[in-house]
């Protein structure tokens, strides 16, 4: 041991940067860093030079100029006189609508299919396998087009509802009309309209909506108080007070009162001129996109749920059965809580996928962010780079928000390690 020379005394030579283990990793890190920076610099420099050659500038000023085109589905008021920025926001809201609806429906369907695939009924389990394999293994774009084609080709056009002896008739007591353009559903109308809260930029919330939200949230908090009071009473006396009618009352009575006060009622759509008016026309492009995204993503979620359930060892359910728990309570109280910590992380990816996949909307003419900012605005202004950069940033922020929200949820359900 004594004849090994102390490395600190060896004079530093350049070859040691590669040959000496102490310096080698540092050397390569520096090289990779320089290469990455050089590649980044080259990309930016190339962009700037080519933009200059084409006589173009990098400028987001176009967002404040008049858009000049119309959008079929506008969650906030929008006309052709509004700016490209507002058109992009309308597109973003349309993206969010289909993404939120899709995530909810895909989760519900996915959990049902995933659990059913483990069913003891042979036929039922196999049917679910077929569902998963069909929707998981064909491209999403095809499913969107197929669902859309089914709607446009099979449903009757609006004018089939016309005349004394129409070829088509409305369903649900003349309240819903299925057409090859949209599904016309009743809207909620009020006889005593309390007016709206103006948030500026022509975005308004009706006071009635706000009142209902307050009533429901307040009812939920009161219900929680009632339940915790019942728990305290049970702990103290051993007798649990009857709570179900109180809970039912706080959740429904305020809403019923509000319905009576505002004179809330359904207003059925009716055929006026070319189209149904008076109701809400949910376009087939939205329904097709939503259904296809739901079915496709549900197939993946089903597999995630199945994997999560299978990851809980058999001993857990056997122990639960031994304690006398019925199968559905075993699932709800023992298996699912443990399975959730395996399910949540991949579920986040599926939500992100669904949100990003919604940009295929243009295939069926649904005006999402890709259709407004990345489609018509990009084309009318010729600002390709700016529009694409803005779109990338928007999707990035959207994805980060979704995943951070889901990470908070994940932190709550994951195994508590102490």
């Amino acid at each position: 041991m004594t004849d090994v020379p102390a490395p600190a005394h060896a004079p530093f030579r350049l070859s040691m940067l590669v040959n000496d283990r102490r310096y080698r990793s540092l050397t390569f890190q520096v090289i990779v860093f320089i290469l990455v920076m050089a590649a980044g610099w080259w990309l930016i420099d190339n962009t700037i030079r080519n933009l200059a050659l084409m006589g173009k500038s990098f400028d987001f000023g176009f967002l404040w100029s008049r858009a000049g085109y119309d959008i079929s589905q506008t969650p906030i008021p929008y006309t052709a006189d509004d700016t490209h920025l507002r058109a992009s926001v309308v597109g973003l809201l349309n993206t969010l609508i289909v993404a939120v609806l899709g995530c909810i429906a895909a989760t519900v369907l996915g959990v049902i299919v995933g659990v059913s695939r483990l069913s003891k009924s042979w036929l039922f389990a196999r049917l679910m396998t077929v569902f998963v394999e069909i929707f998981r293994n064909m491209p999403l774009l095809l499913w969107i087009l197929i669902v859309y084609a089914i709607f446009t080709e099979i449903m009757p056009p609006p004018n089939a509802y016309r005349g004394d002896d129409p070829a088509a008739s409305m369903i649900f007591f003349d309240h819903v009309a299925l057409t090859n353009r949209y599904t016309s559903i009743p809207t909620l109308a009020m006889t005593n309209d309390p007016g709206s809260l103006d948030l500026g930029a022509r975005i308004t919330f009706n006071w009635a909506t706000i009142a209902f939200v307050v009533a429901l949230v307040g009812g939920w908090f009161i219900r929680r108080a009632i339940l915790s009071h019942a728990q305290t009473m049970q702990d103290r006396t051993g007798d649990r007070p009857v709570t179900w009618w109180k809970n039912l009352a706080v959740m429904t009575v305020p809403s019923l009162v509000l319905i009576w006060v505002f004179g809330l009622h359904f207003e059925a759509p009716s055929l006026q001129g070319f189209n149904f008016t008076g109701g809400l026309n949910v376009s087939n492009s939205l329904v097709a996109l939503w259904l296809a995204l739901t079915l496709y993503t549900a197939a993946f979620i089903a597999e995630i749920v199945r994997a999560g359930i299978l990851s809980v060892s058999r001993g857990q359910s056997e122990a639960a059965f031994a304690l006398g728990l019925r199968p559905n309570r075993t699932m709800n109280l023992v298996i699912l809580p443990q399975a959730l910590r395996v399910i949540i992380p991949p579920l986040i990816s599926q939500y992100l996928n669904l949100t990003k996949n919604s940009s295929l909307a243009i295939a069926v003419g649904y005006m999402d962010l890709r259709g407004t900012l990345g489609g018509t605005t990009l084309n009318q202004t010729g600002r390709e780079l700016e529009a694409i950069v803005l779109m990338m940033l928007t999707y990035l922020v959207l994805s980060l928000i979704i995943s951070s929200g889901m990470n908070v949820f994940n932190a709550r359900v994951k195994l508590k390690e102490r």
Partner: protein
Amino acid sequence: MKKSVFLGTVAATTVLASMAMAQEGGATLAQVMERDELNCGVNTGLVGFAAPDANGNWTGFDVAYCRALAAAVLGDPDKVSFVPTTGQTRFTALSSGEVDVLARNSTWTYSRDTDLALDFVGVNYYDGQGFMVSRELGVTSAKELDGATICIQTGTTTELNLADYFRANQMDYTPVNIDSNAEGEQQYMAGACDAYTTDASGLAATRAAFADPESHIILPEIISKEPLGPAVRHGDNNWGDIARWTLNALIAAEEYGVTSRNIEELVRSSTNPEVQRLLGTTDELGAMMGLDAEWARRAILANGNYGEIFAANIGEQTPIGLARGLNAQWTQGGLLYAQPFR
């Protein structure tokens, strides 16, 4: 191993850099000559203007212009690679260098000429936006379309005209945005929209492809000016000149009565000095833009003059059945007016 990764990175960077350089080269003519093929951006499929036939050969009014240009520059009307572009991709395809010339029913507008940095070399079809509806709808005027659902191609000037027209007339409509003419046709036929709107020539061409063209009418209102023409990139003036004068040669040939049938005879016997200059028998006009003397002769021989191209692809004898109208020669009361060859 590390060294090979490093060398690979260097090689990849070099390849990318050389691609970027190719972008920067201004001389489109030299590139086309070297490639020995013209990249021409056309419609994804609009019968009469640009569509592949049963054998996969592209035919149509815009296609004929591409072939004439290829004949003028490369000497062979078949040395064209047709690049189908949608309303959304066409200008990017041109400005990125994917195509050398764009002949795709594109409207010459101020912002496209300036802000998008395109150069329109002329007008090969004077058009206007119209509406097509099913005859059984009973609509006879665009003013009766209040509340209608209307199919429209995204990324087109028609999208903006439509919004303006309905606002000006205080009418409502629901747009159904579609990506290509084929999709618009399918949506319209399925009844997903009450009316289909695009340039009137495009409507006629679309209607001609229907199984029963008679049950659809094109409404009389023309709501906009749509001068359609070929476009090139801004900045390469010589290439722009070649594209412009090839179009002018086709138009002038009709004016002077030069057709693909009598051209050989006129080369030998014509005494009209303008025709002699056009056909390159006197003066060396071609050399002024870097071509040979017979460039215009080949361009005209490729598909005939403007009138022959019009008649063969979209004229009254074809299923599309468009009248010359505004697109007649100025001597016939139309707007076609080629600048003098001198």
